[in-house]
């Protein structure tokens, strides 16, 4: 109240001593394409093979061999483009990006420069109660490089070419992100879309989703400031930390009257520093030119339409459908669609019962428990079938919610079939009304004082219900009990 300015400032501004600063972030995500073989060769792409066991002559840069484009990779790139609401370019060109490095035996990387396969698109992210539409600048295909290993032996460096030639999609966002949180949400959303599409595993630890972050700061409303690029971030947490460290570093420099140098930097998670890469490594003139071994890639509309028609349901539409079809809240729907496997689990549970009931059980009981025990949905001790039949028992009125929790515990630790557990332990609810009526009558008979009072104090009704529940060991159906007690006491 005393700081009037606080309420009108967007909370993602960095407030400096001399004024406010807006952070501008653009991301380049390198996603390894899900395909059995490499972009231009028939060598396998599987992770974890013996070094240099998945290398063809092309990947090793041998002379006299020609690249052949992998149709599967093209399909995957187009499907990704469609998933990002992007324009697919029917004409694109592979060019050579020339540079010299030990893990690049060809002496150039085949990439797309002027004519990428996918043009502008967008994704929607949800951050702190707001939806932001983030523009995609382009998506292009390129080859991955091999891997240098310097720490195997002191006197040698080794090169593993298994990765050399695997297809990468470079997905470039527009500079439309304004905080570390937004950038993190963007990467998570992108990864989610790629996983739904099955075009990339998105496994950051294995390096098949790597991110370069461009950060600059400016006074709100002014032209873009000089940016720095932070290379090769391989976890969502580091993306956040790197952006904070870098944007605050730039604010400090500018407030001290210094200039920002456009440069490539590395983030060191141990020190919290971003530090410049040696400028030698980045002062490149790549001398791009169209690869003479590869014709321009021309696609026909029917091919693209065919792929579009067979696209799986994506997170945003699943989110809308979950809300509509199952009557879920936005929160529940968002939690469920955030991982494809979670959404699938929910959908195979929801078959026999109401959506909200299934969502509550899946989110609170299953996910909550998995989280606490550090488990993944794929290793959940309670399968979706088991949970589905458990919830069916609730819906049918065979067991109460309370009993269901007990059975869930048993399923978690011992496994089994919910229906069998119910009959084996005699846990089924008493729904036989004559049996309940008899118990109700007994309770009423035994408590004449309470019966007199109930007219003045209708709240006593629940006391009667409680007594009946107690007498049945919690097995009576509370709804039937309620109904019968009302009837017997002549209450409405």
């Amino acid at each position: 109240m005393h700081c009037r300015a606080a309420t009108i400032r967007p909370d993602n501004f960095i407030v400096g001593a001399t004024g406010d600063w807006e952070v501008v972030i653009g991301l380049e995500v390198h996603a390894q394409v899900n395909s059995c073989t490499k972009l231009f060769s028939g060598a396998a792409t599987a992770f974890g093979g013996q070094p240099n066991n998945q290398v063809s002559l092309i990947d090793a840069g041998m002379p006299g061999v020609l690249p052949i484009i992998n149709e599967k990779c093209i399909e995957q790139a187009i499907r990704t483009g469609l998933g990002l609401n992007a324009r697919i370019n029917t004409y694109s060109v592979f060019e050579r990006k020339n540079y010299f490095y030990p893990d690049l035996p060809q002496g150039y990387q085949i990439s797309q420069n002027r004519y990428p396969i996918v043009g502008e698109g967008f994704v929607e992210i949800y951050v702190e109660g707001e939806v932001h539409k983030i523009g995609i600048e382009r998506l292009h295909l390129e080859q991955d490089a091999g891997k240098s290993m310097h720490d195997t032996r002191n006197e040698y460096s080794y090169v593993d070419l298994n990765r050399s030639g695997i297809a990468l999609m470079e997905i470039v966002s527009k500079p439309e992100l304004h905080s570390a949180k937004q950038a993190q949400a963007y990467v998570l959303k992108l990864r989610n879309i790629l996983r739904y599409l099955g075009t990339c595993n998105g496994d950051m630890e294995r390096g098949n989703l790597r991110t370069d972050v461009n950060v600059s700061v400016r006074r709100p409303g002014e032209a873009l400031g000089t940016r720095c690029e932070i290379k090769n971030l391989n976890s969502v947490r580091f993306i956040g930390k790197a952006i904070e460290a870098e944007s605050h570093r730039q604010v400090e420099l500018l407030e001290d009257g210094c200039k920002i140098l456009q440069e490539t930097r590395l983030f060191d998670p141990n020190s919290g520093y971003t530090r410049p890469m040696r400028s030698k490594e980045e002062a490149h003139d790549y001398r791009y030119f169209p690869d003479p071994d590869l014709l321009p890639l021309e696609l026909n509309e029917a091919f693209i339409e065919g792929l579009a028609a067979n696209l799986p349901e994506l997170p945003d539409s699943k989110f809308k459908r979950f809300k509509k079809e199952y009557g879920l809240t936005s929160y529940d729907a968002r939690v469920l669609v955030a991982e494809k496997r979670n959404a699938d689990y929910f959908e195979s549970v929801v078959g026999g019962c109401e959506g909200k009931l299934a969502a509550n059980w899946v989110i609170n009981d299953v996910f909550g428990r998995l989280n606490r025990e550090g488990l993944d949905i794929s290793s959940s001790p309670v399968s979706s079938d088991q949970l589905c039949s458990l919830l069916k028992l609730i819906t049918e009125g065979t067991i109460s919610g309370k009993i269901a929790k007990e059975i869930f515990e048993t399923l978690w630790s011992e496994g089994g079939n919910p229906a069998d557990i119910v009959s084996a332990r005699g846990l089924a609810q008493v729904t036989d009304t004559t049996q309940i009526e008899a118990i109700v009558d007994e309770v009423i008979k035994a408590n004449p004082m309470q019966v007199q009072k109930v007219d003045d104090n209708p709240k006593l009704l629940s006391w009667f219900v409680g007594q009946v529940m107690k007498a049945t060991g919690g097995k009576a159906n509370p709804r039937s009990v309620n109904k019968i007690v009302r009837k017997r006491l002549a209450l409405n």
Partner: protein
Amino acid sequence: MWDKILTISNATLKSISRIASGYSKGNFTPNSVIEATLQRIKRLEPKLQAFDLILAEAAREAADLATRAIERGHAIGPFHGIPFALKDLIDVKGLITAGGTVVYADRIATATAPLVSRLLSGGGILIGKTKTVEVAYGAWGTNEVRGTPWNPWDEQIHRTPGGSSSGSAVAVASGMASCAVGTDTGGSVRIPAAWCGVSGLKVTEGRMPLEGVQPLAHTLDTPGILANSVLDTSIMFEIMDGRHPIEITESIKKQVGLYGELKRGVAGLTLGTLCELERENIHDTVLEHYDAALCRLDRLGAQIVPLELEVSSKQMRDDIGIIMSYEAYYHHGPMYEEASNKIDEHVRKRILAGRDITSAQFIEALKRRKQNQVKVLKMLAGIDAYITPTVTSTPLPISYVDQCQTPARFTRIANYLAFCAMSVPMGLIEGKGPTGLQVIAKGHNESMALRIAAAFEKEFGHLPTPPVALF
């Protein structure tokens, strides 16, 4: 009321001078700075454990008053509206001074220490009382009873924050307070400053009032300052030294007095450095940073002179050991003699060692100290300062600490000689943490220590926000 917390830049929140400049430009108010600070504490304190007491409500009230005063044009000076932390060894009326123990946890102060009064009347906002080694007796920063603060330079491994002003240094390094008060009897401000990557100044003994400061060894005790830059250290030093805030504002504006000194550089100064003998048993990386620092000072025009002091650092350390444990036993012996008291066993050992020192040994040590002070002063004629690494290693994993050793080898020199000394960051070793450069200047010559530190800092730059305190 506070639906949105401002993201105040890390560099601003950690700096007295930047905050003051933001206030005067009207870009933010004490309300938002205190709120951002409290927010940071809420986020980081569960991991860092720097505080024994957080004064959130009192700080909010003070911020409110400061905001109104500044908005109406009644700014007191450069310390107005600055969040500071206080080592829990120093009295504030109505608050407990536990001195890092649980035994003293019922000692409610009846008066505020004059040092604190000066900071408060300068407009400072007390944000909390910070963790300390029990009765300030220990330089690793560990406290087995009330907990050891987490050094913010390592996310995974719990490393020594340095002590005894451990919480103060951690709070300042992570931006949970812009600056903090510590105390220094053998290195208790400079060691945590070095290991947490902040500036630490130990003032000359007798320069500032010690009333309301729980004693460890009254002969050697001095207050000290922890801040994120030499300029900030200077501002806080002058406030604590009793200078009027308006005068400080004027001096800063005109760049005169101490602020003129900070700009003078080191060209023409003669700086004594470690001789070959004293370079033994220092970690390689620390030595590397130390030599690089000397190179920088040399490049800036200082004359670097390796110096063999007539009294070795070991002799000084041993004498200080005698004086410290003898006096500490006098002050705290009863608490540590009582076997049923819940206390840190490492500190108990140090204190009880004082029981076996005879008064003759004690008086001998005091006498030798006087004689050695004269000797060293004579040989330092023509030398402006003595430069050492603050500590011989980077922060150690807590589990590696040998409590029978002390990391105070070079810091005790200043306490022994009744000099003043400053530690400034001189490097950062990835995955391990910062190292500090110690500038020891003669008694009452704080401006020389600050001047050399400022010249070095300008050349070296500031450390970034430590990884734990990032997003």
